[in-house]
Structures are given as C-alpha cells and as structure tokens.
C-alpha cells in the first residue's frame, strides 16, 4: 500500500509540472501583466516603464521567468557581504535596467516554496489573502457536501428498493432537472423568491454587514448559509442519488442478500444492514475528489451569493487581471484535484479487500 501510494505520488509529478507550465504560459500570454499593473498611473513615462519591466525581469527568456516564478529568485541575484546591495547573480544580469547600479537582491522564494507573490490589486502576499478566504469556502463546501450526502444517499437507496416505482421515476426526473438547471440561475431565482419577495432569507453574503468584529459563529447566521448550501448541493444530490441507486441495485443481486432474506431477517435489516452498507463502498471512493473539489467547486455559487470565499475571489481576480491570485487558486485547485484522485484510488483499495495494487 505504501509502495503504491509513493508510486502514485511520483507519477503525479509530471502532471503537476504540466499544469504549472500550461498555466504559466497562459498567464504570460495574457494582456496587462505586472508591468501594466505597477505602472498604471498616467504620468509614468515610457522609459520608467521599461526600467520597471527590466527590474521585474519580464524581458528575460520565458524559461528563466518560469524558473523564477517556480523556484524564486533569491538564488538568482543575492547579496553575499550583507551590505544590502546585490553582488552576485546567476542566470540573470546583476544590473537589469542598465543604470549602472545593481538591482536589489531577489526576495521571491517561488511557488514550490510556498511563496505565491503579491496581489497586484490588494498589494499583499497572495498566501495571506487566500488564507483569509479558505474558511468561508470550506464552510460552504462542507455543508453542501453533508446536505448532498444526507439527501442523495437515502434517495438512492429508496429508489433502488422500489425500482420502477413512482418514487424511482420522480427521482430520476429530479436528477436530470438538477443537472440541467444553470446553477447561477437557480441561485438568482431562489434569491428572488426567498429574499426579494418573501423576505425570509438574506439576499447574499456570509453574515450581516453590520456584524462587529467579523462574522459570528456559524449557528448565529444559519440563514445566510441555507440558500447557497442548497444551490451547491443540488449537483451533489443528483449525482449521489443516481450512483447510490446503481450501486444498491448491484448489491441487491448479490448472493448474501438472498442468504440474509432466506434466514428470515426482517426486510429492513436486509436492506439497510446488508444492502446499503455494502452499496456505500463504491461511493466512499467519491469522497476523495469531493472533499478536495470543495476548494474549487463553488466559484459560481459564491459569486451569486457574494460569499467571501476562494472561488469568488478568483473570479474577481480574473476580471481585474490580478494574475498572481489567479495562478495561486489554479495551482491549489489542481494540486487538490490530483490529491483527490490519488486518495480515491487508495480508499478503494483500503475499503475493498478484493482490490490489490502490485
């Protein structure tokens, strides 16, 4: 098992580099970029702009820029005698803008060492900004996942037990409807009904804007969580109820189910103790991607409900061309997805002893 895990992790390395290269190239191809962001003021002359560009290293070859972003530049230009002036450089020129003075030593430590740079628009380290928003995203994501499981799994079990009946058919329709409905529109309509017409629930945000000293604990603002959680959970409910139904039907044909019935157990015990528990096994493997998917799955829902999480942050960053933020969220999302897949494969082997990876 450990051997398998290590092998999967090693296999993930080229994928990770593929992602970083792809997203880095896309980002450098994007219009705007750091120079435009830092020299936005109208009175900046072309010469000043060129110097900023040279100092930021945007004229370096692409592979050097990529390396700087990935591994940092504190080893590319550094100060060896402690006087604050850079005196050595590697791969990049000591005096990049050609004014006769060396550039300041590199301070960026690179994405691999957890330094995601500074946000163009908020002028603070991206890592900090992300950290402030992770909780909101996790709060919404976990409640939606819990709701999705709590509703989807029982629906799937009952649909399978009464296969072909009214309940089965109506849940099938519900699953298609939930996947065909545009998430953002469902959110808008629910806000319209419950917020604008009935005034039952707030129209968005994570807590009252009048709350002093940040949001109160979660039980003090449940009403803010209801609509976004439901909207986010619709997809989960649709998917999980269908998979649970299929898995349950599979299990119901097994010999041990007939044995359980034959030895006179109550129907309830057969279905729930022998059936549903086994039917949950394949579903458990979904949990890996689902848990990590929480980090990136909620962008649109967050945006509609003005939920201050990672997703809406990333969308705003794309709109304002704040590339360090966008890149960070993409990388976090990608790493989470890779981990999710690996976790799901490992869970599969842990839960189902018939599967062996050798």
């Amino acid at each position, binding site marked *: 098992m450990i051997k398998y895990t290590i092998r999967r992790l090693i296999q993930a390395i080229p*994928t990770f580099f*593929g992602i970083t290269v792809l997203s880095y190239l896309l980002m450098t191809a*994007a219009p705007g970029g750091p120079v435009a962001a830092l020299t936005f003021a109208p009175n900046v002359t072309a010469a000043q702009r060129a110097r900023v560009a040279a100092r930021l290293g945007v004229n370096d070859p692409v592979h050097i820029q990529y390396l700087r972003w990935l591994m940092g530049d504190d080893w590319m230009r550094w100060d060896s005698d402690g006087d604050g002036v850079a005196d050595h450089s590697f791969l990049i020129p000591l005096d990049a803008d050609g004014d006769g003075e060396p550039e300041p030593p590199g301070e960026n430590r690179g994405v691999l060492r957890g330094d995601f740079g500074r946000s163009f628009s908020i002028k603070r380290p991206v890592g900090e900004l992300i950290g402030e928003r992770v909780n909101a995203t996790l709060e919404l994501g976990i409640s939606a996942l819990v709701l999705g499981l709590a509703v989807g799994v029982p629906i799937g079990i009952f649909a399978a037990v009464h296969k072909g009946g009214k309940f089965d058919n109506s849940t099938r329709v519900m699953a298609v409807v939930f996947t*065909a*409905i545009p998430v953002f529109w469902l959110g808008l309509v629910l806000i319209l009904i419950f917020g604008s017409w009935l005034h039952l629930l707030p129209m968005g945000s994570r807590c009252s804007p009048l709350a002093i000293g940040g949001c109160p604990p979660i039980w003090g603002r449940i009403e803010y969580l209801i609509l976004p959680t439901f909207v986010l959970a619709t997809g989960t409910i649709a998917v999980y109820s269908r998979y649970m139904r299929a898995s349950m039907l599979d299990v119901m044909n097994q010999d041990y189910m007939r044995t359980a019935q034959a030895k006179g157990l109550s129907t309830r015990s057969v279905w729930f103790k022998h059936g549903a528990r086994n039917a949950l096994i394949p579903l458990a493997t979904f949990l890996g991607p689902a848990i990590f998917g929480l980090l990136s799955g909620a962008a649109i829902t967050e945006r509609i409900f003005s939920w201050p999480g990672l997703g809406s942050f990333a969308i705003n960053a794309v*709109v304002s061309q704040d590339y360090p933020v966008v890149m960070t969220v993409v990388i976090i*999302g990608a790493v989470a997805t890779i981990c999710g897949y690996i976790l799901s494969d490992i869970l599969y082997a842990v839960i189902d002893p018939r599967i062996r990876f050798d």
Partner: protein
Amino acid sequence: MATSTSVAKLNVQRKQGEVGNSLTRVALRRLRRDKLTLFAIGIVALITILSILAPVISNALNVSYQDTNASITFLPLFSPGHILGTDDLGRDHLSRLLYAGQVSLSVGFIAALLSMSIGVTLGIITGFYGGIVDDIVIWVISTLNSIPSLFLLLIVAAVFKPSPTTLILVLGFLGWTSFTRLVRGETFSIREREYILSARASGASPLRIMFVHILPNLFSIIVISLAIDIGGLILLEAALSFLGLGIKAPFPSWGNMLTNAQSFFTKGVHLVLAPGLLIFVTVLCLYVIGDGIRDAFDPTSKDK
C-alpha cells in the same frame, strides 16, 4: 474456418432478400416510439428554428435587439409592440432572447462538434495504436483534467477576450478529453474483435481499419455523448457569459442577459426568468435526447 462460415451465412441471408435487422434500424424504430425523446427533439428544433429566424421575426414585429430607448425601459410583459416587454435599456426582450439563442446555440453546437472531431480522432488513434502515443495523450488528458475546468476557462477567457468565434474555439479545444477517453476505451475493445482481425488479414491499411471498420461501431456512443456535451457546453457558456467572461456586448447571449439580473428583481422579473428558462429547457431536452438515444441503442433493452 469460423470466419468463412459466418460469411456464408451472411450470403444466405442476402439471397433471401431479407431486410437486415441492424442495430441502427432497431434503434431508429425504438426512437420513433419514444414520445418523450421525440417531444424533446421537437422543442430543441423549435427553439433552434425560432433563433435562426430571429431577424425575420424582429422585422415582422418591427423591433430591434440593439436599439436602446430610454423612454421605454422595463416595459412589462404583453406591452403593445413588445410582447415580452423591454429590458433595462429599453431593448425588445423577445428579439434579444432570439438573437441570444443564435449565439448560445451555435456556441454549444459548434464547440461540441469541434471537440467531438478532435476527441474522436485522438481516441481512435490512441485506442488503436496504444503504446507511447497512448501514454502521451493520457498524460495530457490527466493534466488538463487536474486543473479545475472553470478556472482553466477563466484564465483562457481572460487571455483571449472572447468573441463568439474565439469562445467556440476555446471550448472546443478544451472539451475533447471526455470524447477521447470514451472512444479510446471502446476502441480498445473493438480492435480485438474478429472482424478487425479479418480486415487486417485481408490487408486493410490501419487508416482504413480505424475509419471504416471501427468508427461506424462507435456511432451510438458518440451521438449520445454529443447530445449531452452540447447541453453541458450551453450551460458552461451561459455561466462564463454571466460572469462577464464569455460572450460580451454587443452580442446578447442567454448567459450575459442575466449578468445584471439582481438589479431587475423589483422592476422586471420576466427579465430574470426568461433567459434562464430557455437555457434550462434547451439543456434538459438535450439530456433527454441523449438518454433516449442511449435507451434506443441499448441491446439489452427488451421492447423492440
């Protein structure tokens, strides 16, 4: 030996002049009896035709989808001259919905066809040859799939500033992976069948085997996933345009008509409901069609 007897049997059947009960023919017969799928096809066709006829209808009603008029903003439904009212800038809502339909439907259909062409070609090639080609394509797919698709699209949308054409290209070139996976798996199993062996034995070139002997057998799974893919792409386009990163003004799309929807809540609820309903109904019908075709082609379903 086995091959020659089956060929002989085929000849016997042809001589008797029977109409073969091919899978496609059986499927079409089943489809004709499937009222729900036919209804869904009808709805999609209706929406498509009305969208294509958008200029004609707008002319007949003497309205325009882009003429703003500050004196008639937020007209309610069934106003004289504007059946579905007007939007926040006084533009006729019905004609905007129809023109938006042109954009949204063509993005969905063309992008799906594009990703299907790429995906099916790559899928057949990788499934047929396997080996290093397969390894490379699978690596590309797993890399692309590891990036949360919405974020990937967001970056790409930010880079390319999409017009309808570039959006089609972007969605088409990013969406092929699911087709490739599907076709690759199916090709793996088909290439081991006897008729492929017989084609090889009779000296057919790899290209001929792939596109004459394998491709027709993939027809049903391709059509099924095409229908579902079009629906998914319409949803995706709508979401991107809603966020302001897909189709932008002056082109209307069902998604970007909802961008400012939250400010219409008190003045024009129909402006919020209509575009979303059209997206929902179109996508729902496409999913139903995909499901119907799947049932029709399912050899295990009993009714004939």
